[in-house]
């Protein structure tokens, strides 16, 4: 019965149309806008639950498939479907968005209905990226996402928001249009935009290398990898809380998803040929950016750099399998990719939680500078408990979700090269250093000033948001099996194809 409904279309278009409706309600009926937005985002979460319930773990085939002609002139189809790689990311999206909507009721006053509309539309578009099985449809969703995010940062951001948002847009647009040229080239070779056909399309190594580089431009900017990461700290610092949350929790994951969905299967031999580059850049992200994070005096910037370091683990997990297999091992490859995926989901929750924490403080003090805080735990004990939990998760403490992914990736890296594993392992030190130092400076010590002394603890709304995220973080940390099971068959199928190559 569940499969009779076009669930994927519903989960994409319901938030988009809901967003339009909230926009149409206008600023004068903003209370209704809040209710409608919450209702829509919760309905989307229910639809996500239905997807999960109806999903079959035992097959790598696309499920919930919908296929209708879209643009006949390009042989492009409105073709949706999910596998075990897309589903966790969709679930992440539908779980985080309601929290952003809930948080908005308290912290956003200016043009609140436009704010809510932008986030709902974002939600639908991002799910569209994860669900698209047609390269053109994928691209349309991929680019469309820039418009609401551009407005979110620019309208509700901090003092330097215009610079940040234009930089964000131009950086990501630059990467995307190169991907577009690559997709057009592929379309010309294959005669279709169907992703499955493109994955089977035979390509020479030179072609693959060029296409891989074009994809790299799009995905490396998005995820982001060193050295094209510079837009991210700016965007995060200037974005409003909700914008930072969505940016860190979901949009960065789109880059990782792009590597898995397009780069690896379409250009496997180029990925193999350039695995040293990808692994090297991932390690730079983990080690160098870890040090950069240590030096930050702005809380949001610190978390932004920590995001880059954590996403380095995801890319390490996606590209190290080639080295593992080259060393004669085969078992570690799947663990590496799964570890990268778990890392993405975990980081989605952890970074969202940390940005919410900063948002809680910012709403009260209107400062993101670490130096303005100190001794917050004295006045906000409940908040402090949550923040310590999320900081631990960010540092990769066993029992939290942050541990699972990092552990899997490091373990797999040992099978490739002990030095890579060692370098990756430095995150356990660096991550702990910058996160715990942040906690120490903000939460502990003497009450720093009168404004900190006047702080009041979490409201019920904030408690609900952080509580929900804490459940997710601990849940994945203590019992990651359901998440890993969801994706393992799809990951195996992906690796079977990728490691054979096209040549």
């Amino acid at each position, binding site marked *: 019965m569940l499969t009779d409904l076009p669930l994927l279309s519903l989960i994409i278009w319901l938030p988009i149309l809901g967003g339009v409706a909230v*926009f149409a309600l*206008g600023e004068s009926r903003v209370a209704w806008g809040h209710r409608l937005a919450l209702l829509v985002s919760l309905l989307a979460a229910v639809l996500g639950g239905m997807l999960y319930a109806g999903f079959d773990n035992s097959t790598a085939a696309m499920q919930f498939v919908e296929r209708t*002609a*879209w*643009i*006949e*002139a*390009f042989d492009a189809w409105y073709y949706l479907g999910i596998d075990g790689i897309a589903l966790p990311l969709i679930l992440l999206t539908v779980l985080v968005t309601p929290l952003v909507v809930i948080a908005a009721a308290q912290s956003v006053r200016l*043009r609140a209905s*436009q704010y809510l509309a932008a986030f709902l539309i974002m939600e639908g578009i991002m799910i569209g990226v994860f669900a698209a099985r047609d390269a*053109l449809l994928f*691209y*349309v969703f991929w*680019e*469309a996402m*820039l*418009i609401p995010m*551009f*407005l979110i940062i*620019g*309208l509700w951001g901090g003092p330097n*928001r*215009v610079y940040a*948002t*234009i930089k964000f*847009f*131009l950086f990501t*647009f*630059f990467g995307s*249009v*190169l991907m*577009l*040229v690559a997709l*057009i*080239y592929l*379309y*010309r070779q294959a005669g279709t935009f169907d992703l499955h056909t493109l994955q089977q399309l035979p390509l020479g190594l030179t072609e693959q290398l060029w296409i891989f580089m074009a994809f790299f431009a799009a995905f490396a900017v998005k995820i982001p990898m060193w050295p094209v990461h510079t837009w991210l700290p700016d965007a995060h610092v200037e974005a409003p809380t909700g914008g930072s949350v969505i940016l860190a929790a979901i949009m960065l994951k789109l880059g990782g998803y792009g590597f898995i969905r397009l780069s690896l299967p379409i250009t496997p031999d180029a990925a193999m040929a350039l695995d040293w580059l990808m692994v090297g850049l991932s390690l730079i992200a983990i080690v160098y950016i870890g040090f950069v994070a240590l030096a930050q005096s702005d809380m949001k910037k610190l978390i932004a750099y920590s995001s880059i370091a954590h996403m380095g683990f995801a890319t390490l997990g996606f590209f190290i399998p080639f080295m593992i297999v080259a060393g004669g091992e085969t078992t570690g490859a799947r663990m590496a990719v799964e570890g990268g995926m778990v890392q993405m989901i975990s980081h989605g929750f952890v970074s969202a939680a940390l940005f919410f924490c900063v948002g809680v403080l910012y709403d009260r003090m209107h400062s993101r500078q670490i130096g303005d805080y100190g001794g917050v735990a004295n006045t906000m004990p409940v908040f402090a408990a949550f923040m310590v939990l999320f900081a631990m998760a960010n540092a990769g403490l066993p029992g939290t979700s942050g541990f699972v992914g990092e552990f899997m990736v490091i373990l797999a890296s040992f099978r490739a090269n002990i030095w890579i594993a060692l370098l990756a392992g430095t995150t356990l030190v660096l991550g702990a250093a910058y996160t715990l130092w942040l906690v120490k400076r903000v939460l502990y010590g003497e009450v720093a000033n009168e404004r900190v002394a006047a702080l009041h603890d979490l409201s019920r709304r904030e408690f609900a948001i952080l509580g929900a995220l804490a459940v997710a973080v601990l849940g994945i940390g203590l019992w990651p099996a359901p998440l890993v099971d969801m994706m393992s068959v799809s990951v195996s199928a992906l690796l079977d194809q990728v490691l054979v190559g096209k040549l």
Partner: protein
Amino acid sequence: MQEQNTTFTMPDFLPALPEMFLLGAACVVLLADLFFPGRNRGLTWLLSLVALAGTAVCVLALEVGEHGVMTFSNTFVLDQLAILMKLAVLAASATVLVYSRHYLAARDLHRGEFYTLTLFSTLGMLVIISAPHLLTLYLGLELMSLCLYALVALNRDSAVGAEAAMKYFVLGAIASGLLLYGMSIIYGVTGSLQLDEIAAFIGAQEERHLGLVLALTFVVAGLAFKLGAVPFHMWLPDVYHGAPTPVTLLIGSAPKIAGFALVFRLLVEGMEHLYVDWRDIFILMSVLSLVAGSVVAIAQTNIKRMLAYSTIGHIGFLLMGFIAGTSEGYSAALFYALVYVLMALGAFGMILLLSRKDFEADNLDDLRGLNARSPWFALVMLLVMFSMAGVPPTIGFHAKLAVLSAVVNAGFLWLAVLGVIAAIVSAFYYLRVVKLMYFDEPQDNAPLSGGIDMRVLLSSNGIAVLVLGLMPGALLTATIAAIP
């Protein structure tokens, strides 16, 4: 299909019915306007719209086969392509009239001349579209251009307007001269003015005739002037800037479709065998237009000038479709032209909406804080701007995709890469417009002008940019079907 008798036979008038109707209707408007006193100029407006609508009905009523019909001794053709383009031109002209009325009425410009000249220039465009013959082509071109020259000078007390009109006229006349000179050489070499015969003559030649290459150079230069491709673009920013905004709206919209028809009929239908020769010139012009259009626009503070340079950039993309040299490429260029007209109507329409009595909203700063003044029209303009930048899900993306796909297929991958880089650079100034509308505070809070008719049409204009972007299939198929 046609008998070539020495005795006189009555030609088939039916294919030219729309043109004849429009000619008659324009004369009626001209006469009727004399009897309407100033405050009843609305009747002239209504009558002009009826004239355009009636012409569209005539176009729709005509049936043509797959290959079209020729008449008037093969000097007039009506095919699928012509029907599609005529409908687009008529729709664009009607939109111009709706958008302009309020603006003209608020100034001392609400005269019958605007309407009659617009109708006659529309007639010229229709003639160009249906021209399989050099003379018909030239006739239509001059009819269109002369009316436009006069329209630019509509506000006779404006020094900028007079300067723009003078520039437009002198440069336009030079362009026409170049074109005519090229045509005369073609006639001298091939002995025919009819495009299919010219094509047959060139095709039959074993070696490329040097005279034809010379003629081609003149023809292409003339066309480039009319289109505004770099390095023949100098008139365009000044004319866009100097003309009254409704006239800029007119020049910026429907004539681009006629420009496509001009290039298609002359170079593709007439001289496709010289493809390699004109392709190389087009590549150069396309590259220069892309660069100039995207870079120079950044420095503009006047939105009409900015849109003028943006037009030049768009022409660079449009030329890509011709560079591909396949019917797929030509339909992509046609699609691009249609989409461009839709976007230009929205953008210039917004300037008209923001202007009011004694106030011209033609500086970028006048868009400041539009979101606070009217969230809906800010959204409309946002869609138009992102469409011009080529960001999905708007129709502008599919237009760029179509031409890029065509040039990639023709083996010009580097040109496609250059195109997308130009798109990134130009995204910057479109984003700046969005930034002004959304992120800045308004400077004046006067309510927006414009009647309900204009508001509804402008809103549909914006919605069309989005909806066609989500479902571009039908329009794409129509443009592909139009080009055999």
